[in-house]
Structures are given as structure tokens and as C-alpha cells.
């Protein structure tokens, strides 16, 4: 899966998780940019991504994530 495909899928997932279809999913996007992206929504986001891309992340990987760019890099390694 290449980067544009990953971003396209992520856009759908963000819409699903945050119930908000106006989120621009960019590499710089992070929790402070999105309403309702708290620690629980973060877990729901990660779990949805794991299922959608059929990948599993380790606890420390999830803890270190700073923005969407890092998340995509992680997905690319695994998927």
C-alpha cells in the first residue's frame, strides 16, 4: 500500500472515529488539532486502524506517536 492509499483510508477512519468529515488528514495532524481527540478516542483510533490495515502496534510504539506522519510510517513498515 502506498502513501496516498494509506492517507485515503485514514481519512475515512478519522471520519468514522471522530464523527467529523471535515478533518484534513496530513502528516502534521496531531491530537491538539482535532476536537475530541482525547486519550480514549486515541485508543479507539488506534484499534480501528489496526483492524483496517490488519496490523498490530506495540504499546511503546503507540505511546511514542506524535502525529499522523509517524503513524503512517509505522503502517508502511507493517502493512
Amino acid at each position: 500500500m502506498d502513501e496516498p492509499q494509506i492517507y485515503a483510508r485514514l481519512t475515512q477512519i478519522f471520519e468514522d472515529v471522530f464523527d467529523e468529515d471535515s478533518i484534513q488528514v496530513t502528516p502534521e495532524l496531531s491530537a491538539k488539532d482535532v476536537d475530541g481527540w482525547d486519550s480514549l478516542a486515541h485508543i479507539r483510533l488506534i484499534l480501528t486502524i489496526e483492524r483496517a490495515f490488519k496490523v498490530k502496534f506495540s504499546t511503546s510504539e503507540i505511546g511514542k506517536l506524535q502525529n499522523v506522519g509517524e503513524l503512517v510510517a509505522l503502517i508502511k513498515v507493517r502493512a
Partner: protein
Amino acid sequence: MNALYSELQWLPRAPREFSERLKNIAHSDGPLGRALQALAQHALDLNQLTKLAKTIETARAKACAGGKSLDPLAPFRLAVLSNSTIDLIVPALVASAARHGLSLEVVQPSYDQVAQEALTPDSKVNRSKPDAVLFALDYRALPLKLSPGDGEASSATLQGTIGYLQALRGGIKSNSNAVCIFQTFAPPPETLFGSLDRSLPGTQRNLIDSINRELAEFVLSSGDVLLDVAGLAETVGLANWHNPQLWNMAKFSFSDELIPLYADHVARTIAAIRGKSAKVLILDLDNTVWGGVIGDDGLEGIKIAQGDARGEAHLAVQRLALDLRRRGIVLAVSSKNTDEVAREPFEKHPEMLLKLEHIAVFQANWNDKATNIQAIAEELSLGLDAMVFLDDNPAERGLVRKLLPQVSVPELPEEPAYYARTLAAAGYFEAVAFAAEDLQRAGFYQDNAKRANLQKQVGGVDAYLASLDMTIAFQPFDATGRARIVQLINKSNQYNLTTRRYTDPEVAEAESNPDVFTLQVRLSDIFGDNGMISVVVCRPVEGGAWGIDTWLMSCRVLGRKVEHMVLREILSHARAAGVHKLCGTYRPTDRNKLVVEHYAKLGFTKMGEEDSGLTRWELLVEGAEPETAPMKVVSQGFFAAVEKSRA
């Protein structure tokens, strides 16, 4: 992970436009209870449940501000006390409760305040005056002291644990008198010794086993309610249930993938407390109660015997139905069949477990099933929401869901071996108590039930037909279709006007004879391709007319106006061939009463009747304009037929 359970496969899949429908509801000012319940009755994942819950909360606030309720959803206030993070579970509970007819409000105290909330008179939970309190505790909440091999210490731990749970109950009972719902405890998959853990006192597994048993007995005698989470976790597998990573990261008691399943179980339990469980199981017969089609395969042909894989699958359905009846569920039948044909296996087949005496209302006729189910409900004087309808045919399920949304209609997998399991997994008949009267109930309804007479039709069938998006395809006989044509000609009994049987060479002869008009008909719809469903053979008779030698149809597509479309097709070819009249014959057999009025319904004029019951009919081609039905028509291969006749 077993998808039947983790993905709630007894429910239809969520519609593609789920989010749009939610948004429409959010912006609507009308009564929303029904629309919300309808959306909830799909297999929703955690994100969808979360979205739906948000819409429900908004709708409830709006209704409340206007002094209204989310009718017909019944209000219920549930306090949840837990030692784990339930923030993702709460929305799932709200949405799943709507599925079961409840407008659920969840009272959620701060994290891990179980004892404080239960025991303090003016705690958040007790002040909220909940209808019920759910102790959503897992084994980590218990004072479990492991003492392998030490019987005395282990029994002290057991007593300490049960004492703790009883103290929690006592707090709630004296402070708010809510119904207490206790959960059994799912043991973690890790063992210490291995298999020995089960029998050795003081191991985690042995302790949890004893606690669950003692808790179950205590709940049964106290009038509280038990939610068997241990049973649920065993059903999906303990290793699937427990997820140590999620516990470490966020204190989730069990895997997020199983939240929809858990939430549905909580919701059905609360619905049962409110008396909203179903009371009647309505069974389709052909390919549901037995394998095959009684009208076509006959008593010897249907599959219901022990020792036959197909037959055993359907026997399992019968066994479950019978067991349900013994616990008080009323059984009824709705089948598209001639009444006496449908009754025959019940009366004569030695392997049938179900007998006529078990069936409170027996509806075998050719009406649509929504009409029949309504008649059954009226006959039993029970609401439609007390009905569960089991049918292998997706088109019938779709029709009933569309016309009677209050009726529960489980999806069924292709494989009949899973029918019984799917019905049981759906939990329609959840009960929180069992009394002696329950044993009598099925008989009670039965005494009062007479066979309902069905005249009135449920409206909207035409609209439903249009929604099926049907395509009907006509072709003359050809070599590719021949095997199926021969099979239909020799197997169809019910929708068969003349019941003339032809061999393969005879069909091949009709295929190549330029004077014979032949038709093979296929039908597809949104549920898939039904394959070849109708066959017609017309032969020239005196005076430039066509005699309809054979006209048969599969009963699977009854009530779709396929016969009207077939007649239109015959007429157009008759016109092209310069034929001015169609002559039809109905030759009665003991199986084809269904079509006695076939030609009358299609506008033919009756020309005569013989003592045998044989009737003759005619239709003038000129001016004949049969009713049409909403389907796309594809007609192909006839040019070749014309060529053939010219050659």
C-alpha cells in the same frame, strides 16, 4: 475470533448509507424512536455504535426539552459500577439498548469507585435512583488470594469474595433499591499447573469456578439478575476475550472487538427485565424445518432423517424449537404451501420431532408472509414485537423486515448446520427468571388459538417488489440450459399447470423444432441470482393458435408477478409469429392446487371444465395487456430462433 458472535451475524449488515441516515435523524423534528431502533437493528461495530449513541443522546435531550419521549423506546436508567474503563462501553450500551426497544440512560461514576458508590447513601449512583445497577466487575476486582492446594485458605477466599459482593448488593438495596445485575467472572487463560488448576483448590481457575457457582446460586435465590460473562467469554474463547495489552494501556476489561457483543448481552438482559423478550417463534417449513421442498420433493424426498447431514441440521432446528416450547415459547408456522401438503410431514414423517400438537398457529397458504405473521400475532393476541421469524429465504426475511419492522428476523448463514446456533446466539428469548407458569404458557396460547383466516393483505407489497431491483431474463431453450430445464420439468409439482414430464431427448427435440415456442426464464434480485425459475413450451394447435403445453415456475419466486411478465413475453412472440390466440390447460394433480386460478388471474377466459377438474382457457392475443411488474426485462437469443425457423 468467531464472526457469528464478534460481528453479531444474526443481525443484517449496516446499510452503506448508515452515517447519512444518522444525520437525517439528527436533523429531523419528527418522532425518532422507531427510526433509531431500526438503525440499531443492524450489526454495528464500535465506531458505529458510538455515533448512534451520540444521535440518541441528542434526540433524547431534544425530545425531553419538548416534553416528549423517544417512544416506543422505553426509558431505563442503568448505573454501571466497574473496576475497569467503561468509557467506550457506555455508548455501545446506549445504542444496543435501542436495538432492544429501550431508551437507556447510563449513570457512570468515577473510575473504580465500586464500593464507595454502592455503600454511600448519597453517592452519585444511589442519588440517581437507577432502575438497575450493573456490577461490571472482572476477576481483578476480587480479593483473590491464591493458595494452591490449601483447601481451607481457598474456602476462606471464596467466602470473603461472596461476602464482598453481598455487601455491595446490600448497599444498593438499602440506598436505592435498584435491581442488581451481577456478572460471572471470566477466568484468564493463563494457568499455573495446567489442567490441574481446574481441580486443585486455591488456584485462580478453581477459585473463580467456585465463585461463579456460588454467585449464581445466590443470585437465583435473591431475585437479582445474573449476566453470564464467563459463559460469553467461553463461547468466544478466553484468549480472545482477555487482552493484556489493552488492560495495561487503558484498563479495558476485555477485548474492544467484543464490546458490541457484550453490549448486546447487557441490553437483552435489561430488555428481559422490562418484559421485552420475544414470546413466539414462527417457523418457515421448506429448507428451514426440513431440507427440501415438500410440494416438489414429497414426503420421501425431504431431508429430515438422522444419519443424513442435511437432515440432522434441520433436526437441530426442530430440537431447539421444541426445547424452547418446553420453556414456554409459543411455536407457529408460516409457510408458502397448500395447507394439507404442509401438514403431511408433521402427521406422517416418522423422523419429525415437531408434531402438529406443538404448533399453536399453523399458517400454510400462498399469502405473503407479512400478512401471515400479522394473522398469527392477532390470533395469539400478542404484539408483533413478541414475534421471531425464522426463514432460510433472504427475500422473505427482507419482506417481513420491511413491512413489519417490529418482528425480529435473524439472518441465517448458507449452511443449515448453523441455523440453530444462529437463532440461539441472537438471544431473542432471554429470560431473567423462570417460573412454573412459564411451563404452561405455550399450551395456554395454543388452546386459545384457532387457525386464522387471512383475507386482508399488508400494504406496500408493490413498493417492496420495486425495491427488490429484479431483472427477468427470457431465452429460448438451448443446450446450456437443457439440464436444468429437464430437471425443472421433472421435479416441479406445485406451480405446474400440466405436469407433463419430458426426457432430455424430448426437450432437445422441442429446442430444435422451429414450430415449437420455448422459454427459459431467469430472475435475479438484490439478494442474488435465483437462476432458472420458469419454463414454458407452446405448440401450434388448430386455427393458428398456440397451445400452452407446459408452464411451470419455482415456488421460490411466488408473489413476484413473474407469471405476468412471462405472459407478456409469450404474447410479444405470439404477435411476432402471427399467432392470434393462446390456449391454456390446467390439469389437476394432488400437488398443483396452487395454480387452479392461474389462467383466470392472468385474464384468460374459461372455455370448459371436465369431470376430472381439467379446465381449458383462451386468451386473444390482440388487445391482451397483462399487468406489468417492476422489473427489468432482458430478452435474448430469439433472433436465432427466428433464423432457425426460416432455415
